[in-house]
């Protein structure tokens, strides 16, 4: 997976990486050439007393040095550029993939893990590329160069390299291999740490009101201990690597001396060749050390690449059609035809054989007990999920065939949990319609009964909103979420328990103000309060995933016992009658 990720996302920067290789090749050769020039100074300059030669060669050496530096700088430039571009691209691809997921895929990975993958894991792979582009090339060049020279120097001793190099590779390989599972655990424990902290921040008030800080700290400590434990194990393995490599190479030089002595004694080789062989061995050691440093990063990067690859390899379960319908005739119509939804692995369907139709100007209200499937039903319309059986039609076209953008521009959605994004009141209101004028925003706020409090906020429309909308009250948040949907001026409104946090007077005013605005739109309201929905054109009573009643308020009071019960639990006796 690491190789595939690298190959795919480094491809656009192949030219830069080639430049890095070329520049480093030149730089390495230059640095290897310097001692030769120095030898020349001694052999020809000093011995012959040729001062001009000394100065000339010295100047040449200086030039080589400068060239070498220029190469290093240029290589660093292209290396940094390529590795950081790679990281940027990978993050962008990952982000877009997650954004294309449906709720199901997000739940499968878990939001905290997806966040870790988006930054932390990419960082690991990016770092490997960055370090590689500075070390990866120089090390093998030096190493291979030294091996070639060593073999040339004394082929009779070269079999030793054939022993020590595989041992070296085996040791490094085994340690790296054993590090992999540790790093895999490490990344998933990072997910856990991320998740616990995210929960603690999100549930701050609950944690504090239940005085659960000590327990939360203990819960975090457990995750922290787990994370530290794997990091310790990985680090201990890592600590083994460098000494092992150094020992093997130093052991090899002892072996070279022994077997070299045997060969010298037999008159098969010269002592000068032996010393040269030892020098090259030292150089191999140096390059292997450099490579080892980089090799230590590979297991972690490989684990991260796997985690990134898992996200990139997951196809969203809700995909846009290959040939989307881009225009529709009718406007503001929603129809369900025998819709059944079953979550994978679940025994019973969440929704079973639901059929209804709402046209422009009509209001359908859905009521039913907690967990009856109301939210699920609504979320089928903007394709947050796809039906298992049957079809959902918007403006006469199956939503699975519609262009997603076209579908979404038609929908004004107010979800059950009114989530606001960090920014300002205005940026939140313009969320679905960036070009809305201030006047339009105020009008939407008026309808949503939010004008007064927004006007009283410091900065008005520019008042800051913190992430999730935590700096406004629950009811205010809900009204801003309603206004946000209104600003879109959609043809279909979906209100999923959008009035629950409002006091009844505000609720009533809001609905009254809403009526003229939604006159030409199809409206689907999920609600608990009978008072909220009793004027709806049609009321559907959802129970256990099916409609047990469908009609107007007064009809249902008579024909549907469930509805009558719900009504009775809320309205006074004379009201029901």
């Amino acid at each position, binding site marked *: 997976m690491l190789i595939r990720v690298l190959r795919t996302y480094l491809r656009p920067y192949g030219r830069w990486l080639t430049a890095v290789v070329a520049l480093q090749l030149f730089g390495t050769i230059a640095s290897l050439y310097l001692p030769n020039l120095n030898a020349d100074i*001694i052999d020809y300059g000093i011995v012959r007393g040729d001062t001009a030669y000394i100065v000339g060669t010295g100047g040449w050496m200086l030039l080589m040095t400068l060239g070498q530096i220029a190469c*290093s700088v240029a290589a660093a430039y292209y290396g940094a550029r390529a590795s950081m571009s790679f990281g940027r691209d990978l993050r962008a691809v990952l*982000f877009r993939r997650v954004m294309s997921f449906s709720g199901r895929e997000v739940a499968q990975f878990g939001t905290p893990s997806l966040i870790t993958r988006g930054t932390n894991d990419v960082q690991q792979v990016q770092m490997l590329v960055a370090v590689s582009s500075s070390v990866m090339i120089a090390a093998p060049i030096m190493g291979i160069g030294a091996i070639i020279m060593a073999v040339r120097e004394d082929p009779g001793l070269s079999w030793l390299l054939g022993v020590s190099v595989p041992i070296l590779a085996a040791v490094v390989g085994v340690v790296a291999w054993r590090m992999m599972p540790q790093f895999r655990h490490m990344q998933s424990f990072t997910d856990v740490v991320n998740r616990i*902290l995210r929960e603690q921040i999100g549930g701050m008030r609950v944690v504090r009101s239940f005085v659960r800080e000590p327990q939360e700290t203990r819960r975090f400590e457990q995750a922290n201990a787990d994370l530290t434990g794997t990091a310790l194990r990985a680090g201990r393995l890592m*600590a083994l690597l460098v000494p092992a490599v150094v020992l093997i190479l130093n052991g090899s030089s002892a072996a070279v001396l022994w077997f070299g*002595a045997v060969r*010298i004694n037999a008159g098969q080789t010269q002592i000068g060749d032996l010393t040269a062989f030892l020098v090259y061995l030292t150089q191999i050691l140096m390059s292997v050390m450099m490579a080892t440093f980089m090799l230590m990063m590979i297991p972690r990067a490989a684990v991260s690449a796997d985690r990134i690859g898992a996200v990139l390899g997951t196809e969203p379960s809700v995909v846009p059609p290959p040939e989307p319908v881009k225009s529709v005739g009718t406007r503001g119509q929603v129809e369900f035809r025998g819709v059944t939804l079953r979550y994978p692995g679940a025994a019973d369907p969440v929704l079973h054989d639901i059929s209804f139709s709402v046209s422009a100007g009509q209001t359908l209200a859905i009521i039913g007990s907690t967990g009856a499937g109301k939210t699920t039903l609504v979320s089928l319309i903007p394709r947050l999920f796809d039906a298992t059986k049957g079809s959902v039609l918007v403006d006469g076209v199956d939503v699975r065939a519609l262009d997603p953008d076209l579908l979404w521009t038609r929908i004004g959605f107010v979800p059950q949990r009114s989530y606001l994004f960090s920014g300002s009141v205005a940026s939140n209101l313009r969320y679905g319609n960036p070009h809305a004028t201030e006047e339009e925003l105020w009008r939407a706020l008026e309808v949503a009964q939010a004008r007064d409090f927004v006007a009283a906020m410091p900065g008005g429309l520019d008042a800051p909103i913190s*992430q999730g909308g935590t700096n406004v009250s629950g009811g205010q948040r809900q009204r801003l979420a309603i206004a946000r949907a209104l600003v879109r001026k959609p043809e279909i409104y979906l209100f999923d328990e959008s009035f629950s946090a409002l006091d009844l007077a505000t609720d009533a005013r809001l609905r009254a103000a809403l009526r003229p605005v939604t006159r030409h739109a199809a409206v689907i309201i999920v609600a608990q309060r009978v008072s909220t929905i009793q004027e709806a054109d049609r009321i559907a009573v959802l129970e256990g995933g099916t409609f047990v009643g469908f009609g107007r308020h007064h009809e249902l009071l008579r024909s549907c016992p469930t509805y009558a019960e719900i009504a009775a639990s809320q309205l006074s006796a004379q009201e029901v009658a």
Partner: protein
Amino acid sequence: MSGASRKTFPGRPPGAGQSAGRGPPWMSLGTPAEKSMSFWPSARRLLRRLRPQRLRMACVVALSVASVAFSVAGPILIGRATNIIFSGVIGKQLAPGTTKRQAVAAERAAGRIHLAEMFARMHLVPGAGIDFKALAITLLEVLALYLASATFLWAQGYLLNDVVQAVVRRLRSEVEEKIHRLPLRYFDHQPRGELLSRVTNDIGNLSQSLQQSLSQLLTALLTLVGVVSMMIVISPLLALIALVTIPLALLLTRLIAHRSQRHFVAQWKHTGDLNAKIEEAFTGHELVKVFGRQPEVARDFDAKNDELFTASFAAQFISSLIMPAVMFVGSLNYVLVAVIGGLRVATGGMTLGAVQAFIQYSRSFNRPLTQVASMAGTMQSGVASAERVFDLLDEHEQTSEPEAPARPVALQGRVEFQHVSFRYEADKPLIEDLSLTAEPGHTVAIVGPTGAGKTTLVNLILRFYELDGGRITLDGVDIATMRRDDLRSRIGMVLQDAWLFHGTIRDNIRYGRPDATDEEILEAARATFVDRFVRSLPDGYDTVIDEDSGNVSAGQRQLITIARAFLTRPALLILDEATSSVDTRTEALVQHAMAALRSNRTSFVIAHRLSTIRDADLILVMRDGRIVEQGAHGALLQRQGAYYDLYSAQFGGAEAEDEDEQRLADGGSPLQSAAGA
């Protein structure tokens, strides 16, 4: 680079490190000397964190010294082995039976003075070949030496890893503990993803940086010390000349490092910002989709991503210049030595051997220097991350607990607000001079339009925020003089937002009382109708739920939070829209349980469904942070004031609505214009 600059500048005045980061004026380059650009304060703070580990650190240093010493001694033994081989080669060429003295004399007689001197110094046995026994012993010694060196190095790495992980673990814990001590206000302005990034990305980066750089830094510095002392022993003059390169290398390093530091700071700041963007987008990803915001969100993301790219590219590029720069100084030194040395030898001012030694040492001297330089970027990056963690740890905490905390003795549950005023923003008064009394065992209902300050009132009782004026007392004790956890442990709360943590339903119900038995949990679940839907779940009470999961509905989540409060049986109960997402039939059933829970307990209830609070002992009608009316249901209805309006809006039906709205909309109602829109 860091350690080198500190160790090789003994003459530096103490405390100079403080200003080191800002650097001399010529390095400022027009950028303001921000706190975040400094390297040393955070680096020193990081080093101070090693203090609890000083014993292990001392071992680490000792092991490093041993390992470096042994690895430096290795070549000497190798040299001895080479000599044995060499002696054998020479000895074989000499006639057997002669003595070493004779051989030396023979060479001298032949006029080969050099060879004669060399022979004299060697262990020669003429006629004998290589002394394999001696060679074997020497090589075994070499192996033993290297084995010892490697073992020391391994032990050093092992211990250092322990030290780093201990420091990092402590840091993570401190951040987590800090989060519990920060005032709630802090989180109103801080994106969650940014905070998370400090723990996952920054502490992770710090851990990796320390692990990678500390060991190398230590060995490199020790090697440097070793080489320098060897040079001083051989020739103080040569040492002095070689040491001249250090200031130059340091100056270059600092020049470059100073510029890259702020990019590293920016890199980790942007990582945090990007993490916040990702966190927010992933959390609200369904909204992003349905509102067709994917292009904008992606553009927004790309902008942040580009900023991160720019900063990390600059940091990576500039910091990777340090190594070539130091290598350049080294090479320059090398070239100069070669040229000047060569010229000196040519003019007879110096011997060839001296120049060669000189060159040898300046090369082995450059190697650790370059190694340290190559670590500079890693260290800078780590310190930039450390600083972000320290910044979080330095944030203002909520007011500290009183020295001698007060404790109400026998809790009756009498809550009093005395002239309380509070505002979230300094220039926006919310609650002004509010007074109220809740008698023990009474149920106080708070009603009023959204944004009237109902939830704020509850937040103040729980001391989530501190008052700006007045005081709140519990059984006559000012709650500000109590310990927060003591106060809160007496209060049970069910909030509008049903927060559940990642865990089973059982554990979530148990949340407020970890010692509750399964029977008690079941009882609480039955009373709050959690049991009914839990039994239909395939895993029952072991169903794992979390903050974002969709396997239980909003209403069910709320029921679980009610069960949670039910189980704690607190002295004081706060229900803030506890059943807003629960269907009304279930609610009606839950009400019985709630009523049982409320009996003999002072309770504050915020509810929009007035039917649920009709029998409250006291109903407070709030508007704009003030209590506009208070009394019991019947009395309030008779008064035909604000409560009456609210009540008839709810129960007056559609026909009455329009009139009610007129009454409610005190003057500036937006209704007319909205209706006309």
